[in-house]
């Protein structure tokens, strides 16, 4: 036996061990994610209503889906929600993280406070915000009143309600993004700043030429995660508006539409088609983001 075959064998044995170690995760992924994914795609080609009976209908669900103005409305709502939440959310997290990265008093206390919304259940968050947004008794409109502004009826005015939902979304997620960005900021080597000081750069230059490129991997990660989570928005909006709310149509996202079809109307085949449409959207956006990654993200 020459050395190559020995190495090959050892290599194979190590591979086997490697596979064995990742097996629990792989099994979990296949059973819980990958199989249901294909099952959903298959289901979207069937007419399945209620608990029994499936009939193959080809692309009928998709024809109906794309012919329904509601689908386009919820798709638009979903995108609007992303546009409202992602840039503003990340911008605010970045500012707050930069501030908390300085030597200020009660730093840990502030970090704790900003992180708090993450540990509260979304349902509880939404119910509390519902009262804050209440047009007559809510604290927000009372405050606006003091400033001489007549606040809108936040949770039932078409167009405004989605903004209200976005405010809740930004508020509840800022802590998570902030902690991620803060970790990124703290991993920037101090020598870079020292060198910059010697070269006599100003604060803005420091921020744009050192800080931003250094934390760009974190910013990218946070942006991808936040975008996906915003696209999947369900609980806040589901709890905020019900079917008798006049703003329902202009607020419901694709996930809410999916839930109503699949679980309230028992229209599972059609629901699966909505899920598949969601899947395509998320995939496209993620591909775009990864193309952007190559140009904008700087890995050291």
């Amino acid at each position, binding site marked *: 036996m020459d050395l190559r075959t020995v190495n090959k064998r050892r290599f194979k044995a190590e591979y086997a061990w490697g596979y064995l170690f990742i097996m629990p995760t792989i099994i979990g992924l296949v059973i819980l994610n990958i199989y249901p994914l294909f099952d959903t795609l298959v289901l979207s080609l069937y007419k399945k209503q209620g608990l029994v009976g499936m009939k193959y209908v080809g692309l009928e669900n998709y024809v109906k889906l794309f012919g329904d103005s509601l689908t386009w409305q919820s798709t638009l709502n979903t995108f609007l929600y992303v546009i409202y939440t992602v840039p503003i959310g990340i911008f605010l997290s970045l500012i707050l993280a930069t501030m908390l990265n300085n030597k200020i008093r009660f730093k840990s206390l502030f970090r704790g406070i900003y992180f708090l919304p993450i540990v509260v259940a979304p349902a509880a968050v939404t119910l509390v915000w519902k009262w804050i947004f209440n047009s007559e008794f809510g604290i927000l409109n009372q405050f606006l009143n003091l400033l001489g502004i007549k606040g809108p*009826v936040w949770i039932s005015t078409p167009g405004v309600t989605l903004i209200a939902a976005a405010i809740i979304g930004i508020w509840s997620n800022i802590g998570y993004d902030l902690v991620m960005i803060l970790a990124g900021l703290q991993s920037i080597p101090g020598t870079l700043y020292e060198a910059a000081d010697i070269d006599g750069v100003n604060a803005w230059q420091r921020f744009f030429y050192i800080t931003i490129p250094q934390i760009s991997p974190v910013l990218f990660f946070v942006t991808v995660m936040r975008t996906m989570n915003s696209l999947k928005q369900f609980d806040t909006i589901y709890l905020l508006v019900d079917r*008798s709310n006049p703003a329902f149509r202009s607020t419901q996202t694709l996930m809410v539409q999916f839930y109503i079809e699949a679980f309230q109307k*028992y229209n599972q085949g059609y629901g699966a088609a909505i899920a598949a449409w969601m899947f395509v959207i998320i995939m496209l956006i993620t591909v775009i983001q990864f193309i952007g990654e190559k140009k904008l993200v700087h890995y050291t």
Partner: protein
Amino acid sequence: MKKLLCFVLCLAMMPFVFSASAENISINFSIWDKNQQPGMEAIAAAYTEKNPDVTINVQVTPWSEYWTKLQAAAAGGSLPDVFWMHSNQFYVYAEAGTMLDLTDLNIDYSPYPEGVTAMYQYEGGQYAVPKDYDTIALAYNKEIFDNAGVAYPDDTWTWDTLLENAKKLTDKEKGIYGYGAPLHDQEGFLNFIYQNEGYEFKDGKSGYDLPETREALQFYIDFALKHEVSPTPQSFADVGADDQFKAGRLAMLNVGTWMMSDYTVYDGIKDKFDLAVLPKGKVRASIYNGLGYAGAATTEHPEQVKDFIKFCGSEEANIIQAEHKAAIPAYAGTEKYFVEQFSNINIGAYPEMISYGVPFPFSQRKSLWINTEYENLGAVYSGEFTLEEACDRMHQTITEVEAE
């Protein structure tokens, strides 16, 4: 050593295994209304007293999650042994064969409202025993009436009296509206449709093409849009209709029987409100609905489950239910025990209306079109559609879904 340990453990487990199978049968009983939990537990206790070998666990799942959970349980073959059934959802479960056929229990259904019994029949079989029924009455705030000097509603009221008095009672400066007309089907617009001799759904057909139906909807929507004697759906989305009534901002509101256990203990309203039968349109009508006790086809103890359901439907259990203020018991003659529980309000208005009550329309495919009314009528309030357009759309959707 290991073997010995196993053996000892197995031996130690034996008594548990045997006692579980031979002595005690445990039945899960799933409901959605927390207010009715004490009543259901009392029925369960009464049954266990007679059948000491059967224990019944009452589990409450809030309405918003109940059906999602039940649907998943039905698909997975793990439905609770006994559960409440609602007419809107019945067909989905009956069609799938997930419910225990109760036909051979040979219960005499004559004491129950005919409509409720019929709600739970599927292809000649009976799949749930009527539990209760509820109707819709007109609740009014006596204080607001006294302040405005308007006489309380009674059985002489018609649509015209309702509108006229709602106008008198409305005081926008104080934030008081004469009548609450939220976008609700069962408590709201359906009553008006039937009082106007229209219908929502009958014999497999949508009634949204009828002028009577449309006229009634117009009348209902105009409370908020034209006469401004009711808050708008926008306001109701902010603060629900029940909460607005309880806060003393509505002089009148259509309220279902099931809210009474709440209203009569709520400090802000319990001494201030009373009830009247619904005002008369062309005819009298009040939407009634009834729940049923159903069993799971997959239960391990079908005999005990059936026996328990039979007991739930008995006069005795209905009296227990009535005494816990839960709902108007389905068994004729036992409603007086329910009425007795409420001394200071005219609760009798509810059972009185059953004589001309209209069963809550149901169909095999209702769960598929139930949202269309909210979507389209909501768009009328927001000005997106005219009522004619909305009715055309609803008619089309319902007809299409039913034809599939």
